[in-house]
């Protein structure tokens, strides 16, 4: 008996609709967030993450309503990220029914924001999302840097040092995305995942690159992630969450499995 590793389907939401970017360029529509969330709950998802990619700040209010609607009928943990810049944004999401908020770009520009937010609402509600890209060349010691703006802008920040700093500032969890792998379906950057997971005391969610069920298991076994996040393999019904869990359990990973799920 012990803590189960988590599977977290991620819904990218643009103006209230679920979409999934392939390397943030080619975007397809995969449906209504409430419907999708309910289906994932029925399949046994351990949590659901919404990333709001709405460009216009005028339309940001849409995600608040999405979270409210989902929280009214889906009783598993919900995380919301994207455009979270102030403590008011954090509170608004939590009040709408989110359990955690993911802070990404705002943390890079103002690390104190993470400290302030975790002081106000507690570390358990604060996820820091880290988008990292490998910057070391062939034969060099592995090194990753933090990128912003969907992986386009380098910041010069070392990913491991940054993750440690964010935890010291009050992050209760790290959502780690490999920008090299995102959308590629060739698997997580396992060396990156392991380096971050070993460096920090809080749970790490691996993200970016899942193409099959072994990738999920590898993220936990080799990457030492506490949770794995994926979008397209679930959105397009290539696999159900339950299939993914059974596969991971088959590789010896503790999972939350119930015959209630489909």
């Amino acid at each position, binding site marked *: 008996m*012990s803590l189960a590793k*988590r599977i977290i389907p991620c819904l990218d939401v643009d103006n209230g609709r679920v979409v999934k970017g392939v390397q943030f360029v080619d975007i397809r529509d995969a449906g209504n967030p409430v419907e999708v969330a309910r289906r994932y709950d029925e399949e046994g998802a*351990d949590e659901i993450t919404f990333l709001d990619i709405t460009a216009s700040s005028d339309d940001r209010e849409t995600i608040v309503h999405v979270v409210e609607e989902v929280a009214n009928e889906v009783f598993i943990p919900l995380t919301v990220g994207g455009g979270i810049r102030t403590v008011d944004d954090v509170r608004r999401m939590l009040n709408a*029914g989110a359990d955690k908020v993911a802070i990404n770009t705002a943390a890079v520009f103002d690390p104190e924001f993470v400290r302030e937010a975790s002081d106000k609402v507690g570390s*358990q509600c604060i996820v820091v999302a880290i988008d990292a890209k490998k910057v070391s060349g062939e034969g060099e010691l592995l090194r990753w840097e933090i990128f912003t703006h969907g992986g386009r802008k380098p910041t010069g920040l070392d990913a491991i040092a940054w993750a440690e700093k964010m935890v010291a500032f009050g992050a209760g969890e790290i959502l780690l995305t490999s920008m090299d792998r995102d959308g590629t379906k060739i698997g997580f950057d396992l060396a990156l995942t392991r380096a971050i997971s070993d460096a920090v005391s809080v*749970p790490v969610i691996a993200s970016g690159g899942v193409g099959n069920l072994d990738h999920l298991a590898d993220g936990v076994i080799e990457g030492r992630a506490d949770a794995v996040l994926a979008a397209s393999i679930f959105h397009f019904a290539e696999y159900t969450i339950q299939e993914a869990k059974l596969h991971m359990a088959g590789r010896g990973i503790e999972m939350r499995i119930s015959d209630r799920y489909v």
Partner: protein
Amino acid sequence: MSSTVVVVDYGMGNLRSVSKALEHVVSDGQRVIVSSSADEIAEAERIVFPGQGAARDCMEQLKQGQLDEAVLRAATDKPFLGICMGMQVLMAHSEENQGVECMDLYAGDVRAFADEALSSQMQGLKIPHMGWNQVAHRQAHPLWQDISDGSRFYFVHSYYVDPDDTALTAGTTEYGIDFVSVIARENVFAAQFHPEKSAHDGLQLLKNFCHWNGQV
């Protein structure tokens, strides 16, 4: 005769999930209200006492709203469900925030997973304890009805209760150590996990609570 399930609002965190989950499972004739009124707590049929955040803030908020006495009184005379921090502050004392005096309904401490003394057992385990873990039943209890022994519930916490009286223990969970994840005595049932976020089994527990007559 009021038939309200009162979710105690003392300014610590979001109560929407708790109240929505309760609304999902209450019987006809039962009403869920979120309240910070001592009168409404006194008149309620049953009380849900949630909470998140730090122990010191929780106690300060409770005292500021003069709700600590109303909550303690409710804990002696009607079905009472504590959740997460709402379980921890029922103890005498918490180690959080360099030590906080709590409500002292039960003798015992709230302790940190990060305690030096546990470092060998907690090695390699992340803190907070976050995610779905199993709860072993340690008491037969009406609130366990239709919930299998060892079912998984959603946890997120860095501290755990350590009651002096082991007879309080109604459920235990393993995370490096075997800790007390549920306490129960008479009309009080309190859980470290979040039933409102624990899918089917969590809703079942809330439903059991809404039907419970407060007797063991």
